């Protein structure tokens, strides 16, 4: 079935079809319509879930942690400052190895108050132990949420997954999306089997004091799971591709085979970059795109090209572009910061960035170099 709707409504539909038992969320622009739609599903009886209204995002994540610890599938969605308020609980969900799935609608961080797309909110959560997907279309938002549960609940992984997409550019833009039947989703997504649970018949304490050596083992176990997750994400994605006809990989390559320069971008900028690459190819420029879809675990091995132009829609102040810094050592890299706070990055801007890189320039576009 083809559904034409915004990424937010598509995210709510995907979450509904994954059949979570508990949803706890707090509304924030531009995520609001995700939770509004989910609340509607629950209210109308179309989704058999407990919808917990909470007083903050910290509580939303705490409620998901509590629910997941009783062995049920959970879902939440947030954005920007909401995600930042969750930060402590994100670490908690990761170290407790609870396979919570969350949507984050990428939005800039204030002050100054800004509601437009910028990846700094979720990229600042990179060390919390969450797997991170970045979607470039409404279709991919749907597919990634279904895949996210399979990855998160895999017994070799047991880690929470965040699916992010650009505020407004995707969240409030309608696109056609192929939606499989509930039966097909159920076949792909069997019932959740928890690795541990809070059960009054078999009492345990979770999160008690842990001395230094076992603590380090817990951390190592999480790192091992992240390493294994790379393989599992690929397997789940391939299986999804066989069943539904769409797969994406950790990195999506576009016209890279003979490329002298490869543009590395994420999310909506990466979709726009495909247009720029088609234009540049028509002019005889040998340029391709490597779209970074999975940011954690970071596919450093999969992102090796002689010459790369990295466009970061996020900044680590005092160090520079975040993806650029993570890719250092993988080739000759030209680093550009662009599109912060929702500044539009059109295919023309991406073509200009390519020309600047060819001249050996890099920096903030268009603030420093233009």
């Amino acid at each position: 079935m083809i559904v034409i709707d915004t990424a937010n409504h598509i995210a709510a539909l995907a979450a509904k079809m994954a059949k979570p038992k508990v949803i706890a969320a707090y509304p924030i622009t531009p995520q609001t319509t995700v939770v509004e739609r989910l609340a509607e599903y629950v209210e109308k009886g179309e989704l058999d879930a407990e919808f917990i209204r909470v007083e903050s995002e910290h509580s939303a994540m705490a409620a998901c942690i509590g629910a997941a610890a009783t062995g049920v599938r959970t879902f939440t969605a947030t954005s920007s400052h909401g995600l930042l308020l969750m930060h402590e609980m994100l670490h908690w969900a990761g170290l407790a190895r609870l396979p919570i799935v969350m949507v984050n609608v990428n939005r800039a961080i204030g002050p100054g108050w800004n509601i437009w797309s910028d990846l700094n909110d979720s990229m600042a959560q990179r060390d919390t132990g969450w797997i991170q997907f970045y979607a470039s279309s409404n279709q991919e938002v749907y597919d990634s949420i279904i895949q996210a549960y399979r990855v998160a609940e895999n017994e070799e992984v047991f880690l929470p997954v965040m699916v992010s997409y650009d505020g407004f550019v995707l969240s409030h833009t309608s696109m056609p999306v192929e939606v499989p039947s509930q039966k097909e989703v159920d076949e792909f997504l069997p019932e959740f089997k928890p690795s541990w649970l809070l059960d009054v018949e078999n009492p345990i304490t979770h999160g008690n004091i842990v001395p230094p050596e076992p603590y380090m083992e817990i951390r190592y176990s999480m790192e091992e799971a992240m390493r294994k997750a790379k393989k599992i994400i690929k397997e789940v994605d391939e299986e999804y591709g066989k069943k539904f006809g769409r797969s994406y990989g950790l990195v999506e390559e576009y016209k890279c085979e003979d490329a002298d320069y490869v543009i590395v971008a994420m999310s909506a900028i990466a979709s726009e970059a495909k247009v720029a690459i088609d234009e540049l190819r028509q002019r005889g420029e040998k340029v391709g795109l490597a779209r970074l879809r999975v940011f954690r675990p970071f596919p450093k091995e999969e992102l090796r090209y002689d010459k790369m132009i990295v466009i970061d829609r996020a900044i680590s102040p005092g160090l520079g572009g975040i993806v650029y810094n993570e890719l250092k050592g993988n080739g000759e890299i030209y680093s550009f910061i662009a599109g912060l706070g929702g500044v539009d990055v059109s295919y023309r801007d991406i073509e200009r960035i390519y020309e600047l890189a060819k001249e050996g320039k890099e920096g903030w576009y268009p603030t420093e170099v233009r």
Partner: protein
Amino acid sequence: MKTAISYPVEGAMGKTGTWRVFKPVLNKEKCIRCWRCWIFCPDAAISRNDYPSIDYEYCKGCGICANECPVNAIEMRREEK
């Protein structure tokens, strides 16, 4: 998969009842069975029977029950050991 799970065993410091300095003692004649002590006990060491019954193996003697009792039916007595 490793995470911070612990199973119930006697702790290295023994049962928590051995930590007590003051012991709550219930006077059933004064008790009105309002169950405030049962509600407030932070260690769930008070259970509901005919009257509140205190599990001295786990009661740490914090005195919250005595403090909350509206009719002063719980007296905190110094442990004799």
